[in-house]
């Protein structure tokens, strides 16, 4: 619908959604999703496709489930409204990701570097302590993650790996379409995070 043939098409679907039509969501998704993904991808050329797809899909599905959030009397066309919502979703995800990285970096710096400067001997002791602690954490994680695939995924993440292909290879799902690969990789990561939160705590 970023380029629908008939500009009133969106409004007709909006009216149907408001009236409780259960199939209008499918029509709207079929009509708008693909052009919207392309449009938002152009706005975020360096951003991972997975993040774009999630942002756009969530915007459209959210709207269909709660069509009252769009007010046609405000003069903003539905496609523009959804484009802004999708853009905001992607921007929020990127902002959260950035904050998370900054937090991690700060935590890392303050836990090691700051104290090491006091005294070389103290620094060595701290480094040893840190190494022992990390080893204990690693062992604790490995005790929780019995599945060797999970262990490999966790190790890859520790190494800073972010490519879907790398994780898909570990999971043995390279034959699946990319979207399915992303989904499965995310599911595996979420499952591991959940396990670790439950059994090891946030430090891991």
């Amino acid at each position: 619908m970023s380029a629908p043939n008939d500009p009133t098409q969106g409004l007709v679907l909006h009216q149907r959604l408001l009236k409780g039509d259960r199939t209008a969501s499918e029509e709207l998704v079929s009509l708008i999703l693909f052009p919207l993904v392309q449009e938002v991808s152009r706005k975020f050329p360096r951003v991972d496709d997975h993040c774009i797809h999630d942002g756009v899909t969530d915007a459209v599905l959210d709207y269909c489930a709660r069509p009252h959030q769009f007010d046609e009397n405000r003069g903003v066309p539905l496609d523009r409204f959804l484009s802004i919502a999708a853009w905001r979703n992607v921007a929020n995800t990127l902002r959260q990701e950035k904050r998370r990285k900054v937090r991690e970096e700060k935590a890392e710096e303050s836990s090691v570097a700051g104290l090491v400067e006091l005294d070389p001997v103290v620094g060595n002791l701290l480094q040893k302590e840190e190494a022992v602690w990390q080893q204990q954490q690693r062992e604790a994680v490995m005790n929780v993650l019995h599945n060797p695939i999970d262990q490999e995924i966790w190790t890859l993440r520790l190494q800073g790996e972010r490519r879907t292909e790398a994780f898909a290879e570990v999971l043995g799902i390279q034959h699946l379409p990319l979207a399915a690969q992303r989904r499965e990789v995310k599911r595996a990561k979420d499952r591991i995070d959940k396990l670790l939160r439950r059994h090891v705590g946030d430090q891991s």
Partner: protein
Amino acid sequence: MTDPTETQVLTYAAHRAQTRPEYLGWIFVQYRKSEQLTEAALAESLATTSSTVVRLSLCLRPRADHFAEDVQEICAKFNVAVDKLAAIVRFVESIEALRGNPQPASGDAGLLMAARSRPKPRMGKRKKHSDDDLPTT
């Protein structure tokens, strides 16, 4: 990476809808988990194709207070048997009710929940819809 096709984008959206209780996709995934069915087996049980299941997944789930009407509307559009879809939705709703999970808001509370909280009908009043009203195809 290569650009995704329109079909891939729709399939991805249908999978995303599986995490949202407002959508039929969510109903389908609960049913599949419960009955240990593959996507293809679900399509088979609905006597339709996998691509139709993808499109169905993007439909909003039937409202409790318009259940028969909504199911018929969905089935008419996708040429799916009313009794089969209705049975799947009802099955999942009953599981959810037994688990004690709340149904989606906006007046879509499940019939089982409604049955618990609905006041006794006044004499002479009849309910408008029931599952028994559903025609079979």
